[in-house]
C-alpha cells in the first residue's frame, strides 16, 4: 500500500509509452502523450503527499498546521499547462498532415516522403 501511488504512476507511464509506440493514428498518438504525461501528475502529487496533513492553504487554518508539499503542486500546474500546449500543437499537425496526404497514420506519412 505504501508504494501504490508510485506504482500507479509507473503503470500509467508505461501504458502511455506503449500506446505511442504502436499508435497508427496521430490523434491516438496525441492522447497517448497526454496519458504518459498524466503519470507525472500522479507521481508529483504522490511525492508531496503527507499523512494527516491538509492542503497548503491557510485560509481559516492556523499557520503551522501540517500541510502537504506546495512546491510539487505548483510544478504539477506547470506540467498541465505544458501538456495542453503539446496536445494542441500535435493535433494541429495532425490536421495539416491529414489535409496534405489524406492520412493520419504515422507509418503511411513516413512512406510518402521522398
Amino acid at each position, binding site marked *: 500500500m505504501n508504494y501504490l501511488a508510485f506504482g500507479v504512476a509507473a503503470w500509467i507511464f508505461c501504458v502511455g509509452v506503449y500506446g505511442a509506440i504502436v499508435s497508427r493514428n496521430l490523434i491516438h498518438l496525441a492522447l497517448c502523450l497526454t496519458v504518459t504525461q498524466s503519470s507525472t501528475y500522479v507521481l508529483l502529487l504522490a511525492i508531496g503527499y503527507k499523512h494527516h496533513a491538509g492542503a*497548503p492553504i491557510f485560509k481559516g487554518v492556523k499557520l503551522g498546521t501540517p500541510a502537504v508539499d506546495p512546491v510539487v503542486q505548483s510544478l504539477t500546474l506547470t506540467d498541465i499547462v505544458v501538456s495542453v500546449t503539446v496536445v494542441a500543437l500535435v493535433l494541429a499537425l495532425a490536421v495539416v498532415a491529414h489535409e496534405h496526404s489524406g492520412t493520419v497514420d504515422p507509418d503511411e506519412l513516413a512512406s510518402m516522403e521522398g
Partner: protein
Amino acid sequence: MRDRHNVRGLLALPAVGGLGALLAWGFSGMPPFGSFHGFYGQLLNAIALPQRHTTNVVTAIVFDYRGFDTMGEEFILFAAVVGVVILMRGDNEQPTMLQRTDRVHSDAIRFFGVTMIGVGVLVGLWLAAFGLVTPGGGFQGGVAIASGIVVLFLSIGYPAWSKLAREEALDPFEGIGAGTYVAVGLAALISGAPFLHNLLGPGTPGTLWSGGSMAIINWGVAMEVAAANLLLYSEFLQRYLGPKE
C-alpha cells in the same frame, strides 16, 4: 503494414516492461508514500503567509517565489497558440469537408446550455479572483472561463460561437494578458527593485486585496489563458465549420 505493426508491438513489450521494472526499482528506494518531508515545501508553508500575506501557498509559489519561471511557462502557452494559428493557416487549400449545419433544435438543450455558460464563466471568475486566498488561480480560472464560453458552440451552434469567438476580439486579450506579466516585472525594475518585485505591498491576508502585484499578474494570466484556449477552439472549429474562403 499490418505485420510490421504487430512486430512493433511485440518488440515494444520487453522494452516497455524493462522501463517499468526500472521505474519500480527506482520508486522502491523513495521515501514511503505520505512521509516525504521536503525542506522547501515545509519552509514555504511556514513563511508564505507572513511574508506575502497570501493564504494559498501554491499560488504564492507560482506567481511570486517562482514567478520568473511562470512567466516563461505563460510564454510557452503563448508560443504554442501562435504556432497552432500559423499551422492552421499555412495554406488556403480548402479541405474536402462539407459545409455542415449544426443548429441545435432542442429548446431544453439551448436553455440549459445558455444557463451553463453563465455558471461556467462565473466559476472561472471566482477561481481567478480568489486564487490568492482559496484553491484556484489565474490558470485554472482562465480554463474554466474558456470552457464556459465553449458551451455556446455546443448548445447554440457554430454561427453564434463564430460571432463571439472572433480572432480580432481574442488576440488583444491574449496579448495584453501575456504582456501584463512582463509589464509588472519591468515596473519593478524601473523603480529600482528586482524584476517582478512586489511593488504594491502584501495587502491584507485572506482578502481579495492580498498579494499586491501578484493579484495583477493573476488576472493577466487568467485573461491570457482564457483567450489562448478560446483561440485554440476557434481555430480548430473554423477549420471544419467555418465559411470557406
